[in-house]
């Protein structure tokens, strides 16, 4: 039916993209340029489709799949994320040329899985879509050419990922046992009454673990530094942006099942939040590799996002969504600089950034803005995001949590400043020629800087959208 197709528009677009890329991958000879143009065009189409599908509402596949503003907002976020990631794959130097179509293909299937995931209303659908995205990533991570570390990163990611999946399945069995249903609608009806039973609370917590893994929340963060470092820079960018957004969506959807009635769950989340922030920030200080540092900082940022989620209030959830978008923009900006500076697809030490302000002033500026934003300095979006999650936590009475969060933000400033120092204060080495910045990259840089400031100063629209999205899952379901 046409109306059903309208509901399925973003996913259809991703499917189409996957199909085209699949056929491209069958060709004996691959042309990077052609593959890239196809991927870029189709991912742009995906953004358009996601925009068109933003207002859609309805249910598909006998209630296993819900399309509402919440899911559509996240699909839009995912579509934009994948478009941005594809846009910096113009020189895909970190991946062997004959695998380029596969690279884009798995990127697409991964996104498709995540899109399905945010709409899933059935535990089985949820699991299936999660695995679709996970397995694509298991393949993407070792796709890097050259160095030996790739294999280790890929294997590590696979093992920890599968373990997290098992834990999650185990949790699902508990939830099913308690609620007698795999439908999230039905679970939501009964769970608030049953959450005080240990089986229900533990089941839900184990179920959440799968997404803690994606978000790199302590203690599921062990993969992050190795995978961030070991995967190709573009893949890392994708993992650090899109993958996080999907995890946040599901954490919101699943914690909302309890209607905020479980003090036990909240306390556990507070513990994870504090541990993630502190551990991430403290370990990030000693990192020498930029991607590893960003990996640990992502652990800390997972903590900030959790701070909004654990309140399980409307403001908390919407601030988490805002923070996710903010995190995506600023993290993407930082990784974009990594990709451009590491033009041969190599890893980037912080020391390698020395003299970036001479070699590429614009990239240095973008990097500085992104890092200040990650540190939560106004008037960037990172500050507004932190402010909102802190406000949500404070509204719920978590004064100490906010204080710990702020102290952590100050700690994080230290290691971000170290990077800025390298980029702005140190002189470039002898073998560090100026970096060519093409016109599209230039425009992307301007857009990112403008976005970082615009969303920071005028948060109203995005916050409003996040608010109405959250109302759909709190009131609507």
């Amino acid at each position: 039916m046409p109306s059903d197709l309208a509901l399925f528009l973003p996913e259809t677009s991703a499917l189409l993209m996957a199909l085209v890329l699949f056929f491209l991958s069958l060709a004996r000879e691959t042309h990077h340029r052609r593959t890239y143009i196809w991927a870029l065009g189709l991912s742009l189409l995906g953004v358009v489709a996601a925009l068109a599908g933003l207002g859609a509402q309805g249910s598909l596949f006998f209630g296993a799949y819900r399309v509402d503003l919440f899911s559509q907002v996240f699909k839009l976020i995912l579509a934009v994320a994948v478009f941005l990631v594809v846009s910096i794959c113009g020189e895909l130097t970190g991946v062997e040329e004959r695998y380029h179509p596969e690279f884009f293909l798995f990127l697409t299937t991964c996104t498709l899985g995540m899109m399905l995931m945010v709409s899933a209303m059935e535990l089985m659908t949820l699991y299936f879509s999660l695995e679709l995205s996970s397995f694509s990533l298991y393949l993407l991570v070792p796709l890097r050419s050259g160095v030996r570390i790739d294999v280790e990163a890929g294997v590590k990611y696979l093992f920890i990922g599968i373990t997290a999946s098992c834990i999650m399945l185990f949790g699902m069995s508990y939830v099913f046992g308690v609620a007698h249903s795999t439908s999230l609608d039905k679970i939501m009806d009964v769970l608030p009454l049953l959450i005080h039973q240990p089986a229900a609370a533990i089941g839900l917590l184990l179920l959440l673990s799968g997404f803690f893994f994606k978000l790199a929340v302590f203690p599921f963060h062990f993969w992050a530094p190795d995978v961030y470092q070991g995967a190709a820079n573009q893949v890392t960018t994708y993992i650090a942006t899109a993958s996080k957004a999907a995890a946040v969506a599901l954490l919101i959807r699943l914690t909302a099942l309890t209607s905020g009635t479980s003090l036990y769950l909240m306390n556990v989340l507070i513990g994870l939040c504090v541990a993630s922030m502190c551990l991430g920030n403290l370990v990030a200080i000693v990192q020498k590799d930029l991607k590893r540092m960003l990996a640990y900082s992502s652990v800390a940022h997972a903590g900030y996002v959790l701070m909004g989620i654990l309140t399980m209030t409307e403001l908390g959830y919407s601030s988490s969504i805002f923070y996710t978008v903010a995190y995506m923009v600023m993290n993407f900006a930082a990784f974009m600089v990594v990709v451009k500076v590491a033009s041969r697809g190599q890893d980037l030490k912080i020391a390698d950034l020395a003299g970036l302000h001479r070699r590429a002033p614009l990239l240095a500026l973008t990097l500085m803005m992104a890092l200040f934003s990650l540190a939560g300095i106004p008037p960037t979006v990172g500050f507004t995001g932190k402010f909102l999650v802190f406000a949500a936590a404070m509204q719920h009475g978590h004064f100490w949590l906010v204080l710990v969060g702020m102290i952590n933000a100050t700690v994080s400033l230290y290691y971000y400043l170290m990077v800025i120092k390298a980029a702005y204060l140190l002189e470039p080495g002898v073998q560090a020629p100026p970096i060519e910045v093409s016109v599209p990259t230039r425009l992307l840089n301007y857009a990112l800087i403008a976005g970082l400031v615009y969303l920071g100063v005028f948060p109203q629209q995005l916050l409003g959208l996040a608010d109405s999205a959250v109302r759909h899952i709190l009131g609507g379901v």
Partner: protein
Amino acid sequence: MIDPGFPYLSAILLAPVLGLLIILLLPHQNQRAVRWVSLASAGVCLVLSVFIYAAYDQPAGGLQFVERVPWVRSLGIFYYLGVDGINLPMVLLTSIVFFTGVWTMWDLTRRVKEFFALMLLMVAGVYGVFMSLDLIFLFVWYDVSLFPMYPLIAIWGSTRKEYGALKLTLYLLAGSALVLPGILYVYFKSGLHTFDLVMIAQAGLAPDVQYLGFFLFLFGFGVLAGLWPFHTWSPVGHVAAPTAVSMIHAGVLMKLGAYGVLRVGMSLCPQGLMDWSPLFALLATVGIVYGAFVGLAQTDLKYVIGYSSVSHMGLVSLGLATGSLGGVSGAVFQMFAHGVMTALFFSTVGHIYDRTHTKLVPELGGMAKLMPRASFFFILAALAGIGVPCLASFWAELLVFVNGVQRYPVLGVLAVLGLVISALFMLRVVQKTFYGEKNQRYAGAPDMSGVMVLPRAMLAGTILLFGLLPRLALDLINTGVLPLVGTFK
């Protein structure tokens, strides 16, 4: 003469922002244009500040030139600007220091565009803090004024610049890490769903909320005010910073801290002030005495001024801690007077350092003969620092001491002793640096040129003007402080 519809305050706030945007669009090579744009935006700010200072209706008092626009309705954030007797002198101070600071840095040749861009950004933040009456905007501007310090010091500074820059940035942002929870705490506890400072202050807060709230604001903003024992960033930072940055930093930025304690802490939590004032006064006095003693042992001119700043900012804190009309007014006046005075200090030391490449007291000597103009300004600033009558600081320090001794007899007397010591070390430095044996090495070092005398003369003139006519400032300050003091019971 006053157009009620014209947004004077926004114009002051936007002039540096606009200047910043223009500078960003200028090519790197065009250093002349960069300087002129900076000076022009500083000039606009200065003219407008003098104008609103003169046009402020003292008999009416209260907040004037108010602009209030909703920003984020769902959270109750307003773009809310206004001036009263407390922040108007601060705005004027900022403009004076900004204008003279740009002028002082006229000869800069290294990465000129970036320097002035960051400086304008910092000044915009300072104006924003002084004029905003919305807590969130105030906090945002506060951070905006702080983070350009890092590159400004680390790139253009001297003497352990990277260490100084990092220490300063981390200390100050750690301070703001207390302020933001404080703001959110007050916001939710007031239950008014607004970040409007005036509205929350009028509604009043519960005593226990004020207790914790004031603690957070006191130590959060206190770091920037150089409150002992969180002052250690300040001398190191001053020493490392380039001249104009030292001027703005010691002259204006440290006042943001004291202003924050006054505007946010004391007006929102008057009861909290009463609870914490003994500790506040104690820390202030320790700062005064400690700063003076440590200053005694310094040989670097900038360290000398840095520690005297700790001592003088201690006076501001002591004045605030008295919670009396005279004490608080004295503190506000001291902020103004000290700002102008320190700016003159750093501006002059900057000149001496540029010419001789040293700021160590033992290496200099007999400068009065070599650089009579520079020496005149330094000595004038030193006399103002000591509190010689007819100079602005005299009245401010007098007010603080009289009220300080009245409220805290023991601490007050100690503070007076601290000032005596600081007079001692100041005079010693003056004697060793400017009189005594001439160091022949610097015989050829040129004195200030006529054009470069002007900014220093402006600062010196301000010190004299407000020293001879203290009521020019005090009457205005009293209109702002009087309603506030009424709430301290």
